[in-house]
């Protein structure tokens, strides 16, 4: 074996090792981001549960509106300094953006994009963390394949797409918990 061939093999080996190491580091970063995200979600839910009694079924729309409003107010009061990035930290937001991009570019990307287009997409509207999602506006459906590729959420919370923004939505209070602007590529 001549020196050139030997050197090529060593280079290829080193390159493989480097790629493997970066991929492992990326996986480790992703796992850390997901773990951190889940911990923040748990803290949010624990805080929410401390503040409000469970919503009850009733035939009175007035009572329904009242209990949602009470829950929203109490949750808001419990997070008076809440701001964008409290849950979607830069690291977590980067992970979400990557997952969404991978989904949109993947084999089901065309279906996901079509699903978003067909679901009465909303323009980018100004949403604020810890404020109510405007009740007169529709909540665009979230494509199932996208949901498969994002960390699972408990039933109290949902991911919603509003324009290009990914919104973390509190179903019980109607509050915007956090958001990632420019997370979803333009359709």
């Amino acid at each position, binding site marked *: 074996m001549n020196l050139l061939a030997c050197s090529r093999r060593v280079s290829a080996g080193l390159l493989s090792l480097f790629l493997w190491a970066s991929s492992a580091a990326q996986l480790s970063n992703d796992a850390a981001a997901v773990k951190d995200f889940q911990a923040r979600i748990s803290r949010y839910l624990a805080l929410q549960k401390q503040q409000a009694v469970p*919503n009850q079924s009733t035939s*009175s729309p007035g009572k329904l509106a009242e209990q949602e409003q009470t829950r929203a107010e109490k949750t808001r009061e419990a997070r008076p300094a809440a701001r964008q990035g409290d849950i979607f930290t830069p690291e977590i937001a980067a992970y979400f953006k990557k997952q969404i991009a991978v989904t949109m570019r993947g084999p089901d990307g065309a279906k996901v994009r079509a699903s978003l287009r*067909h679901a009465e997409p909303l323009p980018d509207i100004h949403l604020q963390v810890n404020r109510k999602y405007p009740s007169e506006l529709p909540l665009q*459906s979230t494509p199932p394949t996208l949901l498969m590729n994002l960390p699972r959420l408990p039933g109290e919370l949902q991911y919603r797409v509003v324009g290009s923004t990914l919104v973390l939505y509190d179903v019980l209070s109607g509050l915007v918990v956090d958001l990632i602007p420019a997370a979803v590529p333009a359709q």
Partner: protein
Amino acid sequence: MNRNMKIAFRFPALCVAAFALWLSPHFPVAAQTERKPATAMAASNGSPAAVPPSGRAGNAPASSLDIRIPLRDKSVRFAVIGDSGTGERSQYEVAQQMEAYWQATRFEFVLMLGDNIYGGHSPRDFARKFEQPYKELLDSGVKFYASLGNHDDPNTERLYKPFNMNGERYYAFRKGDVAFFALDSNYMDPSQLNWLDQNLKNSQGAWKICFFHHPLYNDGRHHGSDVDLRTQVLPLFQRYGVNAVFSGHEHVYQRIKPENNIYYFVLGNSGKLMTHDFGPPGERVKGFDSDQSFMLVEISGDKLYFQTISRSGETIDSGELERNSETHTH
């Protein structure tokens, strides 16, 4: 009479007419003429069945209703509405047709295919867009089973008792031999897919019917088919033998070509309407985009009978479908 005088005479009359027009959806009784006792021709035996007079006015034909479901003993009979909750006059007129047909067919419950309350969700909205239009049916004990659309508030509506969702976004219930599965197609997350898998697998219903907002197949130009949703739920429908699927979202009526022994209906025009919405025929066998409508469905043994009725009382589609077999339509 000079021009100013003519305007002065006409102005109060115009005001009264405008007020009456505004009043009619809020107090629909005021806008209607008295309905006489009607006669229904029951398709099962061809003999006229007396229809009790309604205490409330309706705009159905006074002499007879065109009833094309057989009204068999012990059948499961229900109505279907989709995209209904506008609070506009057309919703009330469809509701009056439903009421007239309820008098004749005594359907037991109504499936709601989402967009049950458009716009705001204040108590006034619930009253104007649900409680008032369907008051007579609600007072008569007809149950409404709702699924959620993109215009619905997932929190308030699932907790609103008259929607019978028992606090859930998705749920199942059984009537006779028929198992119904109300799905939340706005948010088909892995938890709901697991729930659907388990519940379809364990269902003992001879018929399995799923209803939800976004259509898997759709010829309408405005929204089209939700292919991503279809990719996720269709394998389950096929694996566990779902027989029929009802969806809304597109503001028209469509009966879709059966696929793998599953019958699909799109009914998104019980309040909203999108006229001239159809392109060239693709998935649909029958389409209707020129008026609002609702459906009557009866399931008896291995047959599902359906009749789609427009706001003006015209039957725009009807037929009978056999469980896992061929379609026979009139």
